């Protein structure tokens, strides 16, 4: 049932999106038009469509979800569900995008897909009102609680300057594939929140980070061995001010964009630029790039830009 409805959906989206769209899965991507494999690109940037359709297009350019998810694997999808706000407010990752990512995972043969976020507002309200709980359920995946320290395990960060030990959610450790799905937003603390900052939702004690050089901690965490295999940045409605929670929909800029990358510094650098800021002006991006975690020089990147 799930698969059939997915195929139906993606067929519709495929017709709309044109020849780029897949309706046969990643195998066709290799069999059909020769497309460069994901590693050739530093960044995939899509603009002009709805989040789910843009993802279809973007993941295709990376060779399909099969590049990342193998048959029988356990996949963790980590959106930003930080706030008890409705999807229209742009405070959380777009639920339709989360749903489509999960569908791609299952189609690539994932055994199970799990979703969680250590929220800022009450987690039950966040899960529900963000629309993500419903989207996850509709896609046949599972929402996992994040509200108790008992779900977190301590790990060490090798070479961390400020962050050397941290308690991370057990799913980060137990999953085979980790897909990071931040939403691009203004952030009062870190100036911008994207892929790197989204990791504050997989740890238990965020206030330690705030107390101990926040931006260094964000960069330090990126040294942890269990990194996202893929980052998908939702830049459909971008909160330009009053972030990360937002005060009203007037704070949003309807950029209708989506980016994908295996380099989370690169995707954050592109996000910063999209918000009208130089990547180097965002301290944690600069620190992470300086530590060799990823690239932030957009001019030197192989970027695949797509318009819908």
């Amino acid at each position, binding site marked *: 049932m799930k698969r059939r409805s997915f195929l139906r959906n993606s067929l519709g989206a495929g017709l709309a999106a044109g020849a780029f769209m897949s309706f046969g899965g990643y195998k066709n991507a290799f069999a059909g038009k020769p497309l460069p494999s994901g590693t050739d690109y530093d960044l995939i*940037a899509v*603009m002009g469509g709805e989040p789910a359709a843009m993802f279809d297009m973007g993941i295709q350019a990376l060779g399909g979800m099969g590049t990342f998810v193998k048959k029988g694997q356990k996949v963790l999808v980590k959106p930003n569900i930080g706030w*008890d706000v409705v999807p229209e407010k742009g405070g959380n990752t777009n639920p339709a995008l989360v749903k489509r990512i999960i569908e791609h995972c299952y189609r690539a043969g994932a055994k*199970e897909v799990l979703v969680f976020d250590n929220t*800022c*507002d*009450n987690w*039950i*309200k966040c899960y529900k*009102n963000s629309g993500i709980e419903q989207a996850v359920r509709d896609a046949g995946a*599972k*929402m*996992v*609680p994040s*509200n*108790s*320290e*008992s*779900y977190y395990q301590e790990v060490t960060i090798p070479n961390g300057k400020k962050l050397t030990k941290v308690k991370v959610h057990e799913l980060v450790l137990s999953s085979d594939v980790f897909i990071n799905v931040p939403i691009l937003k203004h*952030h*009062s*603390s*870190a*100036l911008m929140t994207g892929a790197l900052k989204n990791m504050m939702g997989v740890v238990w004690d*965020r*206030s*330690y980070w*705030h*107390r*101990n*050089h*926040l*931006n*260094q901690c964000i960069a330090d965490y990126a040294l942890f061995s269990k990194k996202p295999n893929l980052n998908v940045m939702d830049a459909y409605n971008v909160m*330009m*001010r*009053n972030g*990360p*929670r937002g*005060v*009203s929909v*007037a*704070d*949003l*800029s*309807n*950029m209708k*964009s989506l980016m994908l990358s295996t380099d989370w510094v690169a995707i954050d650098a*592109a996000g910063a*630029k*999209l918000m*009208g800021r130089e990547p180097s*002006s965002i*301290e944690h991006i600069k620190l992470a790039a300086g530590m060799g975690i990823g690239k932030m020089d*957009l*001019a030197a990147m192989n*970027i695949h*830009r797509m318009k819908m």
Partner: protein
Amino acid sequence: MKSSALKHIRTVFASLVLLLFVFLFVDFRGVLGDKAFGPILHLQFVPSFLKFVIAGVAASTGFIIVLVLTLLTGRTYCSFLCPLGILQDVISRAGGLVKRRFRKYGYKKPYTILRYFILVITAALLAIGGVYVLTILDPYSTFGRLMTCFVQPVVLLINNLFAGILGKFGIYSVYHVDIKPYELAAYIVPAAFLLLIGLLAFRYGRLYCNSVCPVGTLLGLLSRVSLFRIRFDEDKCTRCGRCAMVCKSSCIDFLNKSVDLSRCVNCFNCVDACRGNSMSYGLVRLKRQQKDSDEPDSSRRGFIAGSLALLAGGSQLLKAQDTTPSPAKESTVREDRLYPVSPPGSSGIEMFTSRCTACTLCVNACPTNVLQPSTSQYGFAGIMQPRMDFHSGFCNYDCTRCSEVCPTGAIMPLMPEAKKLTQIGKAVFIKENCIVNTEKTACGACSEHCPTKACHMVPFEGSLLIPEIRDEICIGCGACEYACPTRPFRAVFVDGNPIHEAASRPETEELKEVPTEFPF
């Protein structure tokens, strides 16, 4: 009617009521919707009375129904509807099972002076606008505190046990909930009552209800003249005493073949136990009524009159005492609150403390744990009345659950849009404590959580940003204080508004043009 079915009906009905009320207080997952609380709590005497009289809610007629019910049928309320009464029945039943000789039933004289003294004090204090004694003695609220402090943690413990096991199998429908204890002093009153009521019930059945409980005493005044009542059929009675031996209220004087109707709680145990069909429950008989009206108890009447006179004068003295804690003057880096913060919908501290009976239902219903039983924050008289504790949580911007569940009108219903503009306190920034100032590193956790951006970031040294508070749009939700990472004292805290104020709406302006090309 002398069917023993009466007792069974009572047992079944009361069990259901007890289960419902236990669930009400341990429903940590919020299964019951906001609207379910009103009807369930409607008939609780004290909350309904306070909501009608003090909060002025005309629809709160539950206590009138109870009064009429008592006039018609006697103290049915105590055995069928009062959760604390039913709980005591369970405890005394356990006492009987453990060892029958523990139970000291059988006829005893009432503690007349004690019970009327408590009733008069309670009534008099209420008349001058305080709920001090009621806070402690309201049976529903006492029951609530017992559930909140002692039963809910056990329920959570069991839940967490299951969550742990099921989690191993990837089943997350039962999730772990951290058990967060309240301040230690908050357990004093509930623990004392658990001990007192538990021991009394274990040995003496309904002694508490007939000696201490002001609701029991008040209803007892009416049940003396109730239409339906427990009756002796003198011709059939053999003075076997079975009725007295099962009477939890110790109110059957079988030797004189009389029942103290002021103490009888309509449990119908006697009707069930009577072998000679001489005990029954039914319409009052004229003959008995004359016999019931025993000679006037002059000492009792004198006592009541005297107490009232005393309190009329004494009340003025009590009234002079301010219920709100006096403001402290000094301003240091310690987060010194001048006023505690009362929940949105309570209008202010004095309004709140004069209406709340500290049943702690809101403490359980609050999804963020920001509502905590107070210890000394509202003053001694306000012990256990919930306060907003921003170290335990912060008030969810869109949530109005406490105002939906409050049965006494201490927290009045508030529309979500009105709540978002209700300023219960104002954030105060202590720059000396702030990470940005002391460590010269970015933080902004406070501003991050602020739903109105009353707490916003302004340029500081170099490229650093530091918080600044805009009072007029702050609603006092405490998100900033909760999120602030500094210890032991926070760099931002919410000081309560003694009287809640209206916050301004945060301003919004349109954004510039939207990019249509990638800027990279």
